[in-house]
């Protein structure tokens, strides 16, 4: 009995010792894992910290100051930069509404045309690859190249085409007149961007199970009904993503406007990013004020993205 008791108490002690030992190795193991994590992440983090995080925090910080290129020091001015941007800066306000208008047009046309093209191409069998290659091609060229190429089209080709093909509506001052330069910016953006969205829509369409369409066909649904009741609901995920990709990209538009109209004539086609660029680098060098505008652009994009993630999450729950 006592033997047994001794044995069992030894066993308990052994177990406790073992537990303590394993806990000790566990904590050193944990430390080792943390150290290893830090070593692996450090190279990426250094670049990220210096060239992205510091500029981001700095932009927020300097947006509350009157920092500019001329003086060495700066002082805090509270919210006055933001107030000025909203109240006393007609150019910035104009650029905001111009960007908003551009975004609205892009939102509708880029997605509708891309989706229609994707639907049409999916019905083709042999020419599918050919059309996809062709429609995506403009997206490979940079926006600078696209815009410069189109300035030739707008200034030289369209006037001649309007005469020879009797398409008189083509003969317009596409770049020199602010009423038309909006549309020329839109045309180049659509020409460049539709293919990208189309590729995403095509991938989504290929994921629609064919047995659903066949079942609907047997039930007597016509192609239009099948589109509305089967295809569109099944690719809603892709539609949401493309819609927000467009919103996000359109609010940040810069290259195409810079190369095509440079914001002109006057500042009539100036977009937000161009207004910020001009404020900081080519006009007034008011860095503090330009940073406040940059933060406003950031908040707009932030809100768009937050709405997007919410909508996508909601969809996932429903599905």
């Amino acid at each position, binding site marked *: 009995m006592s033997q047994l008791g001794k044995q069992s108490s030894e066993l308990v002690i052994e177990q406790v010792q073992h537990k303590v030992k394993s806990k000790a190795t566990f904590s050193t193991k944990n430390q080792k894992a943390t150290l290893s994590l830090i070593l692996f992440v450090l190279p*990426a983090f250094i670049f990220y910290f210096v060239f*992205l995080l510091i500029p981001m925090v700095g932009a927020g910080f300097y947006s509350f100051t009157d920092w500019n290129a001329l003086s060495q020091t700066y002082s805090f001015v509270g919210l006055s930069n933001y107030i000025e941007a909203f109240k006393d800066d007609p150019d910035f306000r104009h650029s905001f509404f111009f960007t908003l208008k551009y975004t609205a047009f892009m939102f509708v046309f880029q997605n509708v045309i891309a989706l229609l093209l994707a639907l049409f191409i999916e019905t083709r069998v042999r020419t599918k690859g050919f059309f996809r290659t062709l429609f995506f091609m403009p997206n490979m060229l940079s926006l600078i190249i696209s815009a410069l190429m189109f300035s*030739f089209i707008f200034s030289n080709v369209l006037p001649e085409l309007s005469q020879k093909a009797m398409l008189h509506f083509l003969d317009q001052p596409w770049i020199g007149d602010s009423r038309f330069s909006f549309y020329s910016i839109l045309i180049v953006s659509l020409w460049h961007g539709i293919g990208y969205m189309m590729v995403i829509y095509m991938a989504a369409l290929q994921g629609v199970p064919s047995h659903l369409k066949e079942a609907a066909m047997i039930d007597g649904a016509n192609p239009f009904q099948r589109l509305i009741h089967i295809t569109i609901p099944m690719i809603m995920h892709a539609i949401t993503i493309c819609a927000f990709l467009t919103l996000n990209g359109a609010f940040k538009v810069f290259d195409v406007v810079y190369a095509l109209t440079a914001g002109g004539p006057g500042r009539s086609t100036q977009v937000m990013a161009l207004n910020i660029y001009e404020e900081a680098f080519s006009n007034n060098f008011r860095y503090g004020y330009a940073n406040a505008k940059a933060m406003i652009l950031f908040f707009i994009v932030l809100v768009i993205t937050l709405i997007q993630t919410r909508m996508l999450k909601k969809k996932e729950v429903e599905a």
Partner: protein
Amino acid sequence: MKRMFGVITTLILALFAAISFFPIYMAVINSFKTQGEIFDSVLDLPTTLHFENYTGIFEQLDLFHSAGNTVIITVIGLAGIVLCGSLAGYKLARTPGKLSNFIFTLFLASMLVPFHSIMITLTKVAKGMQVQGSLWGLGLIYIGLGVNMAIFLYHGFVKTIPKELEEAARIDGCNDFQIFTKIIFPLLKPITATILILDILWLWNDFLLPLIMLTDVNNYTLMLSVNMLFGQYNSDWPKILSGLIVTALPVVVFYAIFQKYILKGIADGAIK
């Protein structure tokens, strides 16, 4: 009815294809004309092919030099993004815990920051770090701006690799770093290819960052040089158009070779 529908879709697609291709076609045929021929008619085909527009552009603009600059920036940027991104993405995916989650969220959240919002302070940081204006400096900046996306993609990919391989290698006496270089990195090839392709296109076509960073014309990237064509040749269209086509050509060739991967990368990136 069904046949008519087929004909109509084909017609619509053909019309859009024509519109899509028309600007490129116009740029190509007019790049072979003289200024006088363009003045007579832009729509007609050139009577003789004036290749001197192209040779002229190479002599006067030194596009090769700008292309070389772009290659240097791209190589530094890509090497850094792939190296740093794969190391961090792998380890973040394999380490549970709050710290790891926090760092990953930090990288992820930064993906929604628009470049235009940080560009002003970025130029100041670059000046402070003495990397403004240099090619290698610009390459380093691209690492900082592009590594978050790479980490995100690597992170997602590593989750699909079974852990058993690493455990077996650990038992065989490999340390963490050896496991990464010998086992993991080779397995990451497909996602590395996607990242490389997307980032090559980004770096090659990027305009605004080089515009605010590079001041010396000697260091200009291809896109900056192309943008100068307009001012330099003031409506000398044959020269401008041939310059545009020469600049666009590498990307078109790249597209022809890697089309499958490019399209897959875009679709995967969006749907996931």
